[in-house]
């Protein structure tokens, strides 16, 4: 056992793992986190706490992750290299480990210019850090855990026990390099991988052939990403504007048809689409489960945590294993 985390144990016992995302609020609201915790409790093996996703300021991932630990739930603390240099990264990792956080997902994070891409003002004038990249971050955590050394070479009093994760966008340009990217993350020390949301499972399955040929699926636990669709508009947006996400036309059509079935009743149209989105998510989970080399799923219902229990139940993923 590298970390003794629940996620690690579930994977090691050979179960199909399940993680779900919990986005911290844009305020110091422990109430909101507690509400989300109660919605999600028991519905996954570990819960990803996002780290200022889309570069928008939110309650810190480390603080929210501590709340989960204290509430008896297991977090996957996400950590971007956008906002911290290697000194802050390691200090935060030690702090997190002291509070019982065992899983960390290493990512570069969205560029700060992203924060003003939507309706928010964000902080596009912020200075970014990027002292290290996500692969180097994985390597730093591995060195701390396995060698008991800081990146600079100083010894740690006690090595933190960590289950190290990395993200992977299998279908982003340049396609021919994406499996190499995964291989580098694995070589750097990624114990588990959470992929970008996958809608085109057929294409993903083709990429997984290459992954299996390299044996990467045995060296790391790949969890396929599922982003729960809420509407046809969201699917179209994801298809056209989110890098590395392509949505088959048939899925968009299906979602549109669900909305149109409600006629002029807009509320009903939204309800229909939500229902259809949940059905689609269940189907995606099933398809990913059948994809050889995939050892779990990572569920993201963005600002819609209530959808998670409605998906994992019909997907046959409950109850979660006690290991």
């Amino acid at each position, binding site marked *: 056992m590298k970390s003794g985390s629940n996620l690690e144990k579930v994977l090691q016992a050979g179960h199909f793992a399940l993680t779900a995302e919990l986005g911290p609020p844009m305020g110091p609201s422990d109430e909101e986190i507690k509400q989300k915790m109660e919605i999600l409790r028991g519905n996954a093996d570990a819960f990803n706490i996002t780290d200022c996703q889309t570069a928008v300021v939110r309650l810190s991932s480390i603080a929210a992750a501590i709340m989960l630990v204290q509430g008896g739930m297991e977090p996957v603390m996400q950590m971007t290299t956008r906002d911290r240099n290697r000194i802050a990264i390691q200090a935060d990792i030690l702090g997190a480990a002291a509070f019982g956080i065992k899983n960390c997902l290493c990512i*570069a994070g*969205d560029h700060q210019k992203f924060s003003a891409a939507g309706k928010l003002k964000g902080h596009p004038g912020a200075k970014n850090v990027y002292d*290290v990249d996500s692969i*180097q971050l994985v390597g730093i955590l591995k060195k701390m855990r396995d060698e008991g050394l800081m990146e600079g070479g100083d010894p740690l009093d006690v090595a933190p026990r960590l289950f190290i994760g990395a993200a992977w966008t299998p279908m982003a340009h*340049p396609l*021919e390099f994406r499996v190499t990217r995964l291989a*580098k993350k694995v070589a750097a020390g990624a114990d588990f991988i959470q992929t970008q949301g996958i809608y085109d499972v057929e294409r993903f399955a083709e990429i997984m052939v290459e992954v299996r040929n390299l044996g990467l699926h045995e060296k790391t636990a790949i969890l396929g990403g599922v982003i729960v669709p809420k509407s046809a508009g969201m699917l179209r947006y994801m298809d056209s504007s989110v*890098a590395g996400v392509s949505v088959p036309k048939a899925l968009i059509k299906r979602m549109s048809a669900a909305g149109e079935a409600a006629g002029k009743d807009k509320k009903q149209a939204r309800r229909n689409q939500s229902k259809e989105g949940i059905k689609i998510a269940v189907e995606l989970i099933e398809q990913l489960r059948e994809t050889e080399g995939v050892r779990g799923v990572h569920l993201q219902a963005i600002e819609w945590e209530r959808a998670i229990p409605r998906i994992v139940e019909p997907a046959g993923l409950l109850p979660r294993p006690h290991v």
Partner: protein
Amino acid sequence: MIKANSKPLGEVFGFIENCKKVLVLGCGGCATVCQVGGEKEVGVLAQALRLKAGTEGKQIEFLENTVTRQCEPEFVDPVVEGLGDVEAIVSTACGVGVNHLVERGCPVPVFPGVDTVFMGSTLEHGEWAERCAACGQCVLHLTGGICPIARCAKNLLNGPCGGTTEDGMCEISTPENPVPCAWAEIVERMKQLGTLQELGEIQPPKDWSTARDGGPRRRVRADLKLDRQEQKVQS
């Protein structure tokens, strides 16, 4: 070379509006090449400042001069020594020029006439792009001659993040300011060169101490330095 943009006229005028006599000082180096601060642009700026002073009812005399390079003592010292009753300088060199004038003992305030933006190359007439970040430890031999430090928005060293769009653009790219993904370009270039497999190697965290992060930098070449004796002989 170094690229710069002209500062807005109002901002520059604000620096010197209470002076009687101002020298607009151009640079024959990079500022001339990127057409922002050479002899021609000094003439244009000085004239615009004269007109502005006129409309504001201010009596200011503007002198013009352009030296070969504002970053070299031999070109700057005669200017500093011959200022007479000039009360301020507006320099249209890059930021180096302004600093250098001060360093060479300029007795009057030196104001920037331009915003220095980056080190880059000419894409086409009137269009330039950043190509070097002067990090002090070149990695171009690892990346097919395309710099991820200067050209990747996250200066990543181990390949593209997940934000590359289908047409090979960076996640920060907009129609107004298109930014190609440096890593997509690196992959393409190394594929052409038949060296793509080299990118499979993990690059460790970079030592940024040779970049600006290590503090202000100085370069000493002992073999080029003249000792005092030689300097005396030469002079």
